[in-house]
Structure formats: structure tokens, C-alpha cells
């Protein structure tokens, strides 16, 4: 399939692109925000149940063992992946200078995706959860989601094929690669964890590889695509180096995929040995990203305080780097006996979700949703600042709490003579601190969701009434597709 650059056409201006992508993107971002609120609610409820277990009388679906997996499913698939894929499509259209292609596919994908998330969360709450980290939804949920992802990938491909700019910007290849990886990963999950599970400990191998790559390949792609787009946009300066962005891509794609296995898992030792070196080498990507952002900003960070979305995006970037440094430290073979199976390692997916994905996506949504709904950019009002502060403080408390709890557990469990219950008692204060962080995130997330839904509904209402929303966002008819 050749590029469409043999007869170059003028790239559409952003207003025209937004006019075309408006409804699919708005609708899915609003849905993602809705799932965020639900996911955070389930998380807080589940975490509360963990800290304060009820006496006799709990229902089956209200135990931690079901609430927490359901919450992780909703946060990862309902919010993070949906927001990431949608933002990726929006950025792809903008950077390609062309209207989002095959919008009906995006709509179809969105319907399937949300249906799959919904079926999945119900399935988990009522006992069909698979037990695998980040792949809890039963087949009737994950299979439907998988079909939705296929639709997103198709639309992304068509949009990229029709691009009208010669240069390819990093966010475009992060989005394309990320969606492709997501599709592959979900195929593995559907086929090898649901339909035809391998025998014995290979199930652990497949599920560990899958969970690691859903974070390292997909979530990283979604987050970094947004990062590379919004940091230059908000700072008004060009991205410092495409070459360094490529380095991040290649290091993450070749080395980052090998992480996730721990010493002590019932697998031959070469697997955790490979993971340990992979986690170390990924630090080069961390450095490359840090340098790239720092030089893009020119070392001037003053302006970010005026824009809550910008602050959130940079905070998310910082958390990505911190989490990878933490992973590198914890995967040292000498430490593994002590830190494994505590919150230090088991908290990984929630740190990625609440520390990296949520701030970055939230920051991006603070730009995109107002832009598409009302034609204006995000405001620097008190509500946005409060939401940003809440999300950041909450993420810091969550991370600090988990590190504290995990460290206490590790110290207690390191000596076999220490009774097991002591490790639990030692972990509780850290867990409570983490719970406070989760509450802060919940409140901020709900406020943000409310605002975004309000904006979306406002836009819909205005359009139905025939009111022209803004002259900066063209209507679909004006777009030469």
C-alpha cells in the first residue's frame, strides 16, 4: 500500500480536523471519564474492604478478591486504554493533517469496547474473573473488547495512509505501534489465556509476559504519544530531538518487553535473569526521555504552573521515569528474595495506572475535550487546578503508601523467624496512607469526570439545537475528507 503523497494535498487545518473527529473522540473520551469514576469508586471500595474487613454478612461480589480485579479492569481497559486509543487517534488525525478516516469504524469500535468493558466488569464481580493480572475479564468481555481494538487499528491505519504531511512526528509512530501491539497482546490473551491455555506453568509465563507488555508496550505508547505531542504544544517550543525519541522507542520495544519475571517464580531461572537485565537497560530510555523533555522545555519550568493540564502531563512523565527506576532497583537478583510478593512488586500495575496513565491522559483530556466541545482550550480555573493537585497529591500518597507498606512487609518477611502476621500488621499503616491517596484521586477524578461529561453533553445539546458551537471548530460538512 503506497503512501498518498504522490499527489500531495494541502494538510487540513486543525479546526477542520477537529470538526471531523469531534463526535467519535468526544463520545469515547466522555465514556473513558465515566469509567474512570466507576473504576476509582470500585478501587476505593475494594481497598476499604481490605483495610476494614467486614464481619459476617458480606456479599460475594463485595469482597476485595472481586472488587479489586474489577477496579483494575475498569481503570485499565475502560479508562486508560480507551482514553489512550482515542487520544492517539485524535493526535494521528491532527498530525497527519487529514480527517479521521472511517469514523464509523471508530464508533463501532467504541460501542464494542465499552460493551466489552461492561460485560467484563460484571463478569468479574459475579465470579467469572480469570485470576490473571490485567487480564481478569472473562472471554465474553475481553473477546468483545478485542473486536473493538481491531476497529481502532483499522481506522488508525487508514488515517495514517491518507496523511498529507511528509514528516512523521513521533506521536504518530507511537500511536500506530502502540495500537498494533495492543491488538497482538489482546489476541494472545484471548487465544492463550482463554481459549486454549497451555499446560502447567506456561500459563504463568504467558500471563506474566502479557501483563508486562500491556504496561511496557501499550500503556507506554499511549502515554508517550500524548507526552510528545502535548509538551511541545503547551510549552510552545519544538520537540528537542526526534532521534532521542526514536531511541526511547527502540529501547522500550526491544528491551522493555522482556521484563516482568521475578526470581522465586516457579520458572527456570533464566527468565527472571533476562528480566533483571531488561529492567536495567530500560533506564537508557528513561534518560533519553528525561533529556528530551528537559531540553524541549529549555530548562524553563515556570510556565507549567499556569496550565494544570501541562503540569499533569509532566507529572505523569516524571512518574513513568520513577516507576521504571524503581523497577530497575527492585529487580536486582540480590534483592529479589526480600522484595518479591510484597507491595513493592505487586503494586506495579496500580502505580502505572494511577501514577502515569491517569495524570497523562487527564492532562491531555483537559486540552482535547474543551477544544472539541466548545472550541476553547482548557481553562486555568480553580477547578482544573484543584483536580490536578488532587490527582498529583493522590498519586504521590499512593506510591508512598505502597512503598512504605511493601518495605515493612519485606523487612518482616526477610527473617523466617518473624511470624507472618507481623508482616501484615507492619504493612497496614502504609496501606492506610495509600488509601488516603486513593481517596484524593477519587475525589479529583469524579470532579473531572463531571466537568468533562458536562462539557460533552453541552456540546451535544448545542448541536442538536442547531447552535453553532464556535467558529474555530468546523462542522463535518466543511471538511474535505
Amino acid at each position: 500500500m503506497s503512501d498518498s503523497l504522490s499527489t500531495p494535498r494541502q494538510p487540513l487545518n486543525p479546526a477542520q480536523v477537529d470538526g471531523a473527529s469531534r463526535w467519535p473522540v468526544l463520545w469515547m473520551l466522555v465514556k473513558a471519564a465515566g469509567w474512570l469514576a466507576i473504576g476509582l469508586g470500585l478501587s476505593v471500595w475494594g481497598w476499604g474492604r481490605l483495610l476494614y474487613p467486614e464481619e459476617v454478612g458480606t456479599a460475594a461480589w463485595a469482597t476485595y478478591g472481586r472488587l479489586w480485579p474489577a477496579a483494575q479492569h475498569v481503570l485499565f481497559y475502560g479508562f486508560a486504554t480507551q482514553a489512550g486509543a482515542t487520544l492517539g487517534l485524535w493526535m494521528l488525525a491532527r498530525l497527519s493533517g487529514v480527517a479521521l478516516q472511517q469514523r464509523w469504524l471508530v464508533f463501532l469500535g467504541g460501542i464494542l469496547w465499552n460493551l466489552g468493558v461492561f460485560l467484563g466488569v460484571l463478569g468479574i464481580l459475579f465470579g467469572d474473573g480469570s485470576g490473571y493480572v490485567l487480564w481478569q475479564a472473562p472471554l465474553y468481555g475481553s473477546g468483545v473488547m478485542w473486536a473493538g481494538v481491531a476497529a481502532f487499528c483499522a481506522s488508525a491505519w487508514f488515517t495514517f495512509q491518507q496523511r498529507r504531511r511528509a514528516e512523521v512526528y513521533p506521536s504518530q509512530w507511537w500511536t500506530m505501534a502502540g495500537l498494533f501491539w495492543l491488538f497482538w497482546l489482546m489476541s494472545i490473551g484471548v487465544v492463550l489465556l482463554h481459549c486454549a491455555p497451555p499446560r502447567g506453568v506456561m500459563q504463568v509465563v504467558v500471563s506474566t509476559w502479557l501483563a508486562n507488555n500491556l504496561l511496557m508496550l501499550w500503556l507506554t505508547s499511549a502515554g508517550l504519544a500524548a507526552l510528545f505531542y502535548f509538551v511541545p504544544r503547551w510549552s510552545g517550543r519544538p520537540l528537542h530531538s526526534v532521534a532521542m525519541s526514536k531511541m526511547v522507542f527502540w529501547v522500550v520495544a526491544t528491551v522493555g518487553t522482556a521484563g516482568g519475571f521475578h526470581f522465586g517464580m516457579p520458572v527456570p531461572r533464566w527468565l527472571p535473569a533476562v528480566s533483571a537485565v531488561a529492567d536495567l537497560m530500560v533506564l537508557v530510555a528513561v534518560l533519553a526521555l528525561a533529556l528530551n523533555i528537559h531540553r524541549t522545555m529549555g530548562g524553563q519550568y515556570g510556565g507549567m504552573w499556569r496550565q494544570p493540564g501541562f503540569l499533569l502531563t509532566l507529572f505523569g512523565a516524571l512518574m513513568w521515569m520513577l516507576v521504571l527506576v524503581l523497577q530497575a532497583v527492585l529487580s536486582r537478583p540480590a534483592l529479589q528474595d526480600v522484595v518479591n510478593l510484597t507491595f513493592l512488586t505487586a503494586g506495579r500495575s496500580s502505580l502505572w495506572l494511577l501514577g502515569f496513565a491517569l495524570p497523562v491522559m487527564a492532562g491531555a483530556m483537559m486540552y482535547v475535550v474543551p477544544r472539541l466541545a466548545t472550541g476553547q482550550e482548557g481553562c486555568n480555573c480553580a477547578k482544573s487546578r484543584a483536580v490536578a493537585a488532587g490527582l498529583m497529591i493522590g498519586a504521590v500518597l499512593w506510591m508512598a503508601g505502597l512503598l512504605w507498606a511493601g518495605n515493612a512487609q519485606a523487612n518482616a518477611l526477610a527473617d523466617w523467624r518473624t511470624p507472618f502476621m507481623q508482616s501484615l500488621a507492619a504493612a497496614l499503616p502504609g496501606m492506610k496512607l495509600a488509601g488516603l491517596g486513593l481517596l484524593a484521586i477519587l475525589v479529583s477524578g469524579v470532579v473531572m469526570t463531571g466537568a468533562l461529561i458536562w462539557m460533552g453533553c453541552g456540546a451535544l445539546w448545542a448541536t442538536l439545537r442547531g447552535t453553532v458551537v464556535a467558529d474555530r471548530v468546523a462542522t463535518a460538512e466543511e471538511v474535505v475528507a
Partner: protein
Amino acid sequence: MNHGALIFLSAFVTIAFSWAGLVMTPQLQLGRLEPVPQPAPQPDYPTARPGLAQQGLQVYRSMGCAECHTQQVRPEGDVERGWGQRRTVAQDYLADRPLLVGSLRLGPDLANFGVREAGRFAVPWKYATETNHLEETEAWLYRHLYQPRGQAPRSIMPSYAFLFERRPIRPGQSADAMALRVEEGQGGRWPEQVVPGPKARALVAYLMSLRADAPVFEAPLPGAAEAAAKQSATNAPAGGTTNQVSAPISTNTVSP
């Protein structure tokens, strides 16, 4: 330059390499593992779980027990804690689908629960009889599922009382052997008892079937090599390993 093809190829090649190295290679190495022969007359290890225990595995999965409990014995410390005689290896898990080894220990490891002594529990207890250890452990387990903080006051395990049923005790009947509680009838009603429901029985059968202590090459029992070397120098019965493998217990230990 055809960027689209280049991006697709880069993404494809990188994940294909990762897939080949970290999923296909272990599959080639571990995918055809067979159960390990044991000293006669024991069957090869592991055997498939009996039917009720297999149902119990589904209950274990469905309740999300793997969120807090692990089923992997590690070489350092876990053996001394009484959680197993040796570390777990790939062969220990051949019989299970789905396989939930867990990732966080908010509760003790369960890989050898079926052979754990009362004194090695997280909150140690003592057997009341000499001969009924299995039944006592099962009864302990039912009580633990019903109300964990009855046995372990600082436990954060949820109460699984919804796995139990209330049944009336009709006139002329006595309470079930597995009844956890018997309550007097009020206002002329029959007395009621709380007994384990089918899911509780299945879960307990599964937990009592958990053991990973058969000797395997990859995880010899500590001291086995030295003991064998000493043995062959004497006149003692020749041959075989000296691993102390206890006689196989019936794995279907749920009382009728």
C-alpha cells in the same frame, strides 16, 4: 520512504522477537513436561486432582483468592517457615488450569496447605486428637472461611459466610457433623445449623489437596545428596532416593 510499512515492521519485529524469546522458547522447554516418576508404588507426580478439588479450584479462582494468597514456595525462607519441604518448580503445576500462583502475600502461601502441620500455621494451633488431624484441619478451615478473625484476630481476610447455608434441624435429626453453629429455634421454630455449602466443600477439598513435596530433580530436598551418599556405604536396603516421602494420603478428604 514508506513510513507506514517501516512503523509496522518495527512494531512487528520487536514484539515477534519478544514473543519468540520469552513465550515460545519456554514453551519449547517446558511445554511437554511429563509427570515425574516416583519411587514405586507411588503414582507419577503430579496426579490430576479429584473432581471435587477441581471444582474447588474454580471456586478459588472465582473468589479472587489469588489476590492475597500465593502458591509458590521460594527457596529462601519459605521452607523454614513451614510452607513446604522444597521450592516449587514447573512440574508441580502440570495438573492445574487455571494456574494462579499469586503475586502478593497478604495471607500465607498455600502451595503445601494439604500437608501443613497445625503448629506451622500463621496463627499456630494444636491438634485436639492424635488421629484426626485431617478432619481437624478441615474443621479449622471451615471456621476460617466463615469468620477468619475467629482464628486469627489480626487477619484481613474477608468473611466467606455466604459460602455456607443455614438449614433447619428437624425433630429427630441431629446437627450435621460439619455444622459450624447450631442456634436454638426461637418462638417455636426448629433449631438451625450453619453448614458448609457445596462451594465451601469444593474449596476445602481443593485446599486439602494442595501439596508440592514429591521429590523432583530440579529441587532436591535439602540434605538428600549427603544422606544418599552415606546410605550406599552401609548394608542398608539398596537403591532409590532417601527422600522421606510419606505414604500418599487420599486427596479426597472431604467428609461425606
